[in-house]
């Protein structure tokens, strides 16, 4: 018998076995006399327990998402009711509007400034704080502290630090003979100022997550590397980074999404100015919708925000997965 024939016989035997199983089960089956009500107990319990979540998600996430799409095709009155159907005109208007283009450029730059910086600094701090040294717990607490800082408090503190007359940063730079920077008043520096504030706020959470990732790495890996005589940086490159990649992947995605959603720091530090240089997308949505009552264009922007976040998450997942080392 050649292989194909063997294969065919095997398949036939399997089919026959399946037939036999079904016949036998039919022969001896005991019909459940319990009611349908009793048999579906699991589903009913599950649905009962899931109900609050599903209900809330539907009302406050799925429904509004669809409604946003709907509104983005309309011109609205000041109460947010859809008034005139305009199709894709809101989008067309946005894409042609210099204001929106500027907002997108600012947002892109802002993300570029914040994401790598936040992750690299947090990684650096986590590596420091992962050493087994006396009093390390104190440093860990300090490094994670900005996670407890609210946007409003952080922004107010940095508003003070950036202040042209009483601000500490310019004062400090002056000590080294560096001329004062017009932090929040210069269009280029304003975006950087907001980025600095955001990075500072991000560090606490990113640090905590990366430190957790570091501590999850099996210490015997380092012990065996020590025995082999590998140095600190060799171990960092060959053990720590590959083992940490899932954590880094996660935190990069989270930071990405958070950066796109920045609002509070803009509202307190610059209010989108000067010259709309810090008019990040969420602030722009806020202004259009709740200051100018342009719910249609605001919704169109919200949809664009959604698509960006959605695509970035998917892209990151696809692109990042190849580089990530999963245990």
């Amino acid at each position, binding site marked *: 018998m050649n292989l194909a024939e063997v294969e065919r016989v095997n398949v036939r035997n399997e089919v026959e076995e399946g037939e036999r199983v079904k016949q*036998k*089960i039919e022969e*001896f*089956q*005991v019909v459940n006399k319990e009611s349908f009500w009793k048999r579906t107990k699991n589903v009913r319990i599950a649905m009962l327990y899931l109900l609050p979540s599903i209900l809330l998600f539907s009302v406050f996430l799925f429904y509004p998402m669809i409604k946003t799409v709907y509104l983005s095709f309309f011109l609205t009155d000041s109460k947010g009711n859809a008034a005139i159907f305009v199709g894709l005109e809101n989008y067309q208007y946005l894409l042609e509007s210099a204001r929106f283009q500027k907002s997108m450029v600012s947002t892109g730059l802002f993300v570029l400034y914040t994401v790598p910086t936040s992750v690299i600094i947090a990684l650096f701090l986590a590596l420091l704080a992962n050493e087994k040294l006396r009093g390390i717990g104190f440093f860990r607490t300090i490094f994670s502290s900005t996670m407890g800082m609210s946007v409003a408090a952080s922004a107010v503190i940095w508003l003070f630090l950036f202040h042209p007359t009483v601000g500490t940063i310019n004062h400090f730079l002056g000590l080294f003979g560096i001329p004062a920077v017009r932090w929040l008043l210069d269009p280029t520096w304003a975006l950087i100022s907001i980025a600095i504030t955001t990075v500072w706020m991000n560090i606490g959470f990113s640090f905590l997550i990366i430190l957790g990732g570091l501590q999850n790495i099996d210490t015997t890996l380092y012990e065996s590397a020590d025995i082999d005589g590998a140095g600190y940086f060799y171990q960092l490159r060959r053990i720590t980074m590959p083992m940490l990649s899932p954590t880094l992947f996660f935190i990069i995605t989270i930071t990405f999404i958070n950066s796109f959603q920045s609002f509070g720091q803009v509202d307190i530090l610059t209010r989108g100015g000067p010259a709309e240089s810090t008019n990040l997308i969420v602030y722009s949505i806020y202004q259009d919708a709740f200051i100018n009552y342009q719910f249609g264009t605001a919704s169109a922007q919200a949809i664009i925000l959604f698509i960006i976040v959605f695509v970035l998450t998917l892209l990151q997942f696809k692109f990042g997965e190849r580089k990530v080392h999963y245990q």
Partner: protein
Amino acid sequence: MSHIELHHLCKSYDQNTFAVEDATVAIEKGEFFILVGPSGCGKSTMLRMIAGLESISAGELVIDKQLANHLPPSKRNLSMVFQNYALYPHLTVEENILFGLKVRKVKKAVQKQRCEDAAKLLGLSDYLKRKPRELSGGQRQRVALARAVVSDAPICLMDEPLSNLDAKLRGQMRTEIRQLQRKLGITMIYVTHDQVEAMTMGDRIMVLRDGKIQQIGTPLEIYNHPQNLFVATFIGAPPMNISKAMVDHENKQLILKDMLCIPLTEEQMKNVTSDVVYIGIRPEQIAHGKGSSRDMTFPVSLTNVEVLGNETVLSFPVGENNWKAKWLGQWPLDIHKKTEISFSMDQIYVFDENTEEVVISPVWKEHVLKEVLTVESR
């Protein structure tokens, strides 16, 4: 009427293959019944169907004369001990023991009494206020047993309860569980893959393989009269020696390649229909040196000798197979040296090549054994 009955019990997960096929058995009240087999043979599935943790695909499960197929686990009047004990880590030993009673709203006084009795019975009285993680493996096992004891259920199911313990403790717990079961008079269904547990604890054993029942019987029946090749090799340590042999129908003998010719009686020959058979002989039936005239005697070269203090296990090749012999006492023999061994032809098992069913097995001298026992007990 038996306590627990299975009629054509079947379980199939994918509707294409059986996990348990057509199991029929009746388990008596107060019996210690063992389900044994290699991993994946369906023994745990069968136990879980009896417990109600797994749905029954076909067939009937009858407990106390009542069809129990669709009863929820708590209505089947049984207790269960799990492999990892399933203790609640956030509760103390006492709370763990009484957990089920509280759920069933048993009176406080009764709870207290039963807990005290069970703790005393299992030597846990000093540990009642501790958490499970502060206990040793053996103590955790006892807590799990205590939980089964206080439930006062007439049926107890155990799923490999000893496999997480070390060898010494396992031996001790074996005895304790058996004594406990006798004392309480409960019906026990006990799953294990360990044939020593099966042989030493059970009133009766069910041997399973690939979801099919191979044999049901008392430990000695299973050991002395295995119904097929699988049971013969599964029960017994070291396992029964097996070799293929040609059947010489003309001269009424079995020919083991280049080594042995085993003559068969007329009576025996009638049972042998195939041209090739498996012959089997238990290691302890192989003796050292020349046997009597009716015995097979032949030289072998030893490949391994394990001296265990009270017994010695020797390995040697016979044809294509490796055989083992078990001798009482200490035999520090040189390996690779030729040694003469012998076995009685009365002790041979013969299995059909195709069906693997037994066709010849030694006469079981039950009366001899009984005499020995009565002499000993005097």
